[in-house]
């Protein structure tokens, strides 16, 4: 079993990493689809600025993103204070904040993959669906969404992998709290900082590699299955 060669601390870091990455990806999915669709299909004032803003985490040092998140979502931050007053939710120094940091860092990759996929869908096919009686929502549900599934799987994987590897923004925004924000990369860093932690670090590095390979394989299989269903490709 896992416990036989992983210490409880390592198991905790692994499960926390998975939880943070899954939530990061799940919550950002509808937003990623929405923004990708806007960027792929619509012309509007400020489109270039929006595109730049979405891509910003790709170019900024992660520490800067973490700092911006801290300023905005911290207990006294512009948005953080409102969230706490209205819903009693706080993101500072807990796993939810770690998920937000991971989601924000993976968002540009997610949107990019989806946008390419949406741009590959012929809008004239959607028009045909309208003339056959489908409302815009039905057209999205039965035509656009199934056709963007391959892009969705690719985007999900990229965002998930980015979330698993998130370090700089996480440690800046929500620090290094065991069981709350100490994900695998943070735990590896911590182990390397402590005397005699080399073995522990090495085991978690191997774990990270295995996790990455598993995620990649899963997405390959999923993409193949979808492509086969859509286009009958072998």
């Amino acid at each position: 079993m896992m416990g036989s060669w992983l210490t409880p601390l390592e198991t905790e870091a692994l499960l926390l990493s998975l939880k943070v990455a899954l939530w990061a990806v799940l919550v950002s999915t509808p937003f990623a689809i929405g923004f990708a669709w806007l960027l792929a299909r619509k012309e509007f004032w400020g489109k270039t600025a929006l595109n730049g803003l979405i891509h910003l985490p790709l170019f900024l040092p992660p520490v800067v993103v973490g700092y911006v998140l801290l300023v905005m979502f911290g207990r006294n931050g512009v948005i953080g204070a409102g969230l706490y007053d209205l819903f009693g939710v706080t993101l500072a120094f807990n796993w939810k904040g770690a998920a937000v940091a991971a989601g924000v860092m993976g968002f540009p990759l997610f949107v990019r993959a989806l946008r390419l996929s949406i741009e590959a869908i012929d809008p004239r096919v959607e028009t045909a669906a309208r003339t056959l009686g489908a409302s815009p929502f039905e057209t999205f549900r039965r035509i656009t969404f199934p056709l963007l599934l391959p892009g969705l799987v690719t985007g999900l994987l990229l965002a998930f992998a980015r979330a698993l590897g998130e370090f700089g923004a996480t440690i800046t925004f929500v620090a290094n709290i065991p069981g709350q924000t100490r994900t695998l990369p943070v735990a590896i860093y911590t182990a390397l900082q402590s005397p005699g932690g080399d073995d522990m670090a090495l085991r978690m590095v191997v774990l990270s590699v295995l996790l990455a390979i598993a995620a990649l394989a899963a997405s390959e299989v999923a993409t193949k299955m979808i492509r086969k269903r859509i286009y009958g490709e072998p």
Partner: protein
Amino acid sequence: MSEGNTHIAVTLRKSFADFTLDVAFDSTSALTALFGPSGAGKTTLINCLAGLERPDSGAITINGATLFDGTTGTDMPPETRRIGYVFQDARLFPHFSVEENMRFGLPYVPESDAWADFDQIVDLLGIGALLDRAPHQLSGGEKQRVAIGRALMTSPRVLLMDEPLANLDPARRMDIMPFIEHIRDALKLPIIYVSHNVDEIVRLADHVVILDQGKISAHGPLTDVLNRLEVQSAFRPAAFGDGGADLGTVLEARVQEPDDAHHLTALSVGDDVLYVPRMDVTKGQNLRLRIAARDVALALEKPAQASILNVLDGTVSELVQNDPAHMDVKVTTAHRQILWARITQRSAHDLGLAKGVPVYALIKSVAIESGLPTVRDGS
């Protein structure tokens, strides 16, 4: 389907930076052809009918029901108009099988309006063997037939077809035209058919609307419109690329005697009679004929000894010079039929042709357009 003929009334205006579409017409015909050069506004016009584009002003009604009215602001979205649309590119859904494509619109058809029968439509279009295939496994002609079936399955009130055969080679076109004739005749579904191919229009349409630079330049029954010279000059290959046709006359004929002692078929055109080599037709059947102007020769006297079978007498009613070498001559026969002849300037001069001169028209060849092959005179 509906009782009596469907009445479509359209008046609309839509301005673009470089041109304005401004049309008004109504139709109760089985197949109305929208005809005109590229950029004339044909596709914009049917997109407005389908609700894919919004006119600046005007009104569109089907049997009195308003789809669009610029004064009240009524503008039904495409999904509630119940107008079928067959696009030039089939636009099948790549993730659905042929049958799933066909049934796509079924959930949206109000039960009381549903007349389409899956088996009948599959049969009509000959696509029974394709139902399990994916769209990418189909040929161009098969895709287009499936697209037609998919539109029919939504039980539309009107079917719009935007150059449905333009992407197919000539042989495939000939294969699909009978299917369109079936829809027109068997389903009694009014069709608005956009094309710039004269052969398609002569074969399929009974009503023609000619669009030029956003305006209707001619509108009416096919034979009336197509035999007008100014209309014909618009059909020239120069203006249309392929699919343009030479000057000619379109005539409605009725089979008089399918097979006489000489293995000929007699056709009456009004009160004139034309003979063509024996065809597989029945007495009383209606045919549409096309006689190319270059296949009509003129003589001042009735040729006593000639191999030409069809000679009609008439008078010159119009002379038009379309190029330096040729003269186009409109002959009105004794029975008031119109016939265009294209002869050389020199012949026109030698014969002393002028308006009112009696002539004999010698017809070298008659093309039968209603699905039957061209018949050359056996001279």
